[in-house]
């Protein structure tokens, strides 16, 4: 979590330096990019306590294409549940596949198989025990570098002993925080087994915001995916302050991009007063 502060700080410092020059400038430019072979993309999410599983299958498009992802609607998508029962998901259109009426529990392994155009993709994901969100707190913070004042929202919870991997997601006034750079994943490497109080550092909240927070417990592979995904989904990807960009580490076997993740969750709501 410190790394994120540091990165923010370095970028802020760079901005300060270039404003000394008074003429750093940013422009949208035309650039020619190669056309890569189309690849399959699978995003399958299994949430603790949900009654359905949704999987989306799409294909990559050329980078400057404006028509959105190419949906794949002719795949056969199956999920093997913890008790070895196999559920076939129904095609819902626009690349979505769904199965309802399921009982989804944690501390169990889920398996995915997608068959499409003579290709088979498989993945397996373990859903860890959930870590209960104890409470949420807000706190006033003065704006930095001349920015507006804002509120921090903190998650408070008792970390379980042993390495745990987390993602925090938030909804502000019902709207999912889904901008690039709003993916927050962290581990308990430096505070294993402690009572943890950690802010949502990817967003500055305002007075009057109604905030819903989800604390997700991830398997190491899922964490690895979201961590590497956050790097390329960020608008900083490719800037000199980041590593050479690469595709996120997927747990899907057979040559597709994306992730199949079984995620344990715990939720809470807080109102920041006017």
């Amino acid at each position, binding site marked *: 979590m410190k790394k994120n502060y540091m990165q923010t700080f370095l970028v802020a410092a760079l901005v300060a330096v270039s404003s000394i020059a008074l*003429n750093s400038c940013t422009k949208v430019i035309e650039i020619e990019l190669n056309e890569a072979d189309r690849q399959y993309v699978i995003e399958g999410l299994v949430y603790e306590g949900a009654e359905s599983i949704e999987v989306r299958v799409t294909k990559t498009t050329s*980078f400057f294409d404006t028509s959105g992802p190419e949906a794949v609607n002719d795949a056969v998508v199956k999920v093997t549940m913890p008790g070895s029962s196999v559920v076939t998901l129904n095609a819902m259109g626009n690349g979505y596949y769904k199965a309802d009426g399921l009982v989804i529990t944690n501390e169990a392994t889920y398996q995915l198989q997608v068959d499409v155009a003579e290709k088979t993709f498989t993945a397996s994901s373990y859903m860890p025990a959930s870590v209960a969100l104890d409470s949420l707190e807000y706190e006033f913070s003065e704006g930095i570098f001349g920015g507006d004042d804002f509120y921090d929202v903190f998650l408070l919870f008792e970390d379980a002993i042993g390495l745990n991997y987390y993602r925090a997601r938030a909804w502000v006034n019902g709207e999912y925080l889904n901008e690039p750079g709003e993916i927050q994943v962290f581990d308990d490497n430096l505070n294993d087994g402690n009572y943890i109080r950690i802010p949502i550092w990817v967003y500055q909240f305002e007075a009057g915001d109604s905030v819903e927070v989800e604390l997700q417990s991830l398997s190491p592979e899922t964490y690895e995916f979201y961590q590497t995904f956050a790097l390329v989904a960020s608008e900083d*990807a490719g800037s000199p302050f980041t590593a050479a960009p*690469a595709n996120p580490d997927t747990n899907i076997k057979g040559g597709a991009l994306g992730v199949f993740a079984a995620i344990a969750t715990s939720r809470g709501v807080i109102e920041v007063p006017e």
Partner: protein
Amino acid sequence: MKLNFPFTIKTVLFAPLLLLATSVFSQTYTVSGSVKDQKNGEDLIGAIIAVKEIPGKGTATNAYGFFSITLPQGSYTLMFEYLGYTTKEVAVVLDKNQSLNVQVDEASETIAEVIIEEDRPDKNIRSNEMGVTRLDPKSIATVPVLFGEKDIIKIFQMTPGVKSAGEGSAGFYVRGGGSDQNLILLDEAPVYNASHLLGFFSVFNSDALKDVTLYKGGMPAEYGGRASSVMDIKMKDGNSKRLGVTGGIGLISSRLTIEAPIVKDRGSFIISARRTYADVFLKLSKKDDIKNSSLYFYDLNMKANYRINDKNRVFLSGYFGRDNFGLADVFGFDWGNATGTFRWNHIVNDKLFSNTSLIFSNYNYRFNFNASGSDVKFSSSIQDWNLKQDFSYFPNPNNKIKFGANAIYHTFIPGEVESDYESFTDTKLTNRYALEGGAYVQNDQSITESFGIQYGMRYSYFNYLGAGKSYTFDDKGAKTSENSYGNWESIKTYGGFEPRVSAKYQLNKESSVKAQVNRAYQYLHLLSNSTTSQPTDIWVPSSNNVKPQIADQVAAGYFRNFKNNTYEFSVEGYYKLMKNQIDYRNGADLFFNDEAEGELVYGEGRAYGGEFYIRKQTGKLTGWVSYTLSRSLRTFEDINEGIEFSAKQDRIHDFAIVAMYELSKRVKLSANWVYNTGSATTFPSGKYEIDGKVVPLYTERNGYRMPANHRLDVGVTIDTKKTSQWALAHPDFESSWNISVYNAYARENAYSITFRQNELEPNRTEAVRTALFKIVPSVTYNFTF
């Protein structure tokens, strides 16, 4: 691909035999002594001592201005030559060993024309070295630079074979090697992070520097520890004749240097300071958090020397520099180097010169932030103690032998974090220790009048020591085992021979051909998970996982001077293989990670190129034209599916013109123009959607190129008129205005190109180019008295 190199120990053991191949004289005597600047008593490094009666015989002063030449009994005229100085002739009757201390005077414009006509230095033709660039900070004082900050590293970036690490960056790449493969020495002390302010400035204040030499390939055997190059920076000794003050007031920083004798002609000192003051403007802000912020760096160079007697002299030099960023009580971030060198020169006898150095170097950074009333503090450092003994032996004018040894004790403190945060456990990463040693012998020998060879052998040794831990990892980087070691217990050792040979054959008075082979080991590695240098980059020792980097290089060149040495021309070609190069796993987390070695992957590199250089050092118009055609490629099993890819610095064309023109006695114009192919970079070749976000699809590492960079900088330096009463009463006071414009035609060179979703149309993706500097004018006022 297998990269092998035809080096064996046997092939270079022949070298010492050549030493005996010189003719034996019946009775010989030695003249030894020093060469100094008459005006301020500074030792002159590399001044030539030629014997008028025996053309082609001669020697040069060493790094301390010392020379020794042994000749048969007789009468001779010794000529002391130094570029820009009047050649001095001294008659000696050699019937016994004698010492001779010579002072030469800087040539006044008119005399220079005459003298230089007679005897222009042709060192680049005659010396046995190649792949060497030497710049005297004085000679490039008028070159226009960013913010008017004279920066020797930026000037080197415009010479062949040296590439800048990015617009405005003080980082550099030499002959395709990494930016951590340059050994940067300030009075023998390694400087671990040579950048200020995120790399826009180097830590070297030109006012305090005497001489800077960059070895791009043929590193003499006395240097060791980095794979690519050595930048040997020597600080001024200080005026031993009288008090001198030099200073400058610039747009973003000011400088002041004071030098004076301790005891006239026996000892002197110099103190040079520089500080930026951008943060002064922050104080003008009405907002408290901006007002209480800091944003500055400073450098302090200090040196003193004292001649105890004719045979002994001591030097003490130090450097302290620090960057300080702070935002009220929210963030604090500071980093810097401290180095210190104590040296003892001892003249053992007429032919044997000894130097003993005790060297200290430290780099650290600290970082703290305050979140909701709790403090988190972080710090990290690397520290060296180095004891070094060098000898120069001058048996006869045909051989200059150097030998010596050193031992460095490295302490790495990768990180400590403390906090009064409730949910935080104070943590300390495991410290690391290592001992690095080297021993060398080399000879610079003239075999015939036209054939010369410089050959040396270095043996280096590295011991990764306890107390500490070692880890093993599986091929995915997950830890498989851990071992603990006690104090001084050896965890892993490495060692190897590093042959360094270069030879010259002089075709005629104006041209020569040269060739060289050499090997260099590097036992320390800089981990940096970004494409630019950051203060938080960490140095790590070689270990059971990280093997020493090895660079093998062959090079050949043709050197030709025109118009009686007015123009120097050279073309050099090289081929270099680099083993045990380091890169990172996807999403590698190097920060505060005891097991960061698990995030590393290893591969090989190769680089090759041609360098063209024309330089004119005298006359009204001086400067150079430099062109480098080169490639730098890497092969990693775990990256790019094992297919060879371009290193970031794989820029094919690099072109620079640096010109300085003396319009009149008072007005000097200068300009430089640079052009280079863009850096290799990774751009997306498609896109897809996950979690409702558009994600770029990458297909190959560094498969694209940034747009080409080019830029013109211009400057003018005007000496102020000496007309006022005051000026006439103070003839020593000189001052000048330097006005320069960086990027004069406002080219928007891409600092970065990133990709994003269009705000209004989420399905539309666009490329965004950031250019840092358009036109940057600056004014500096310089004075000296």
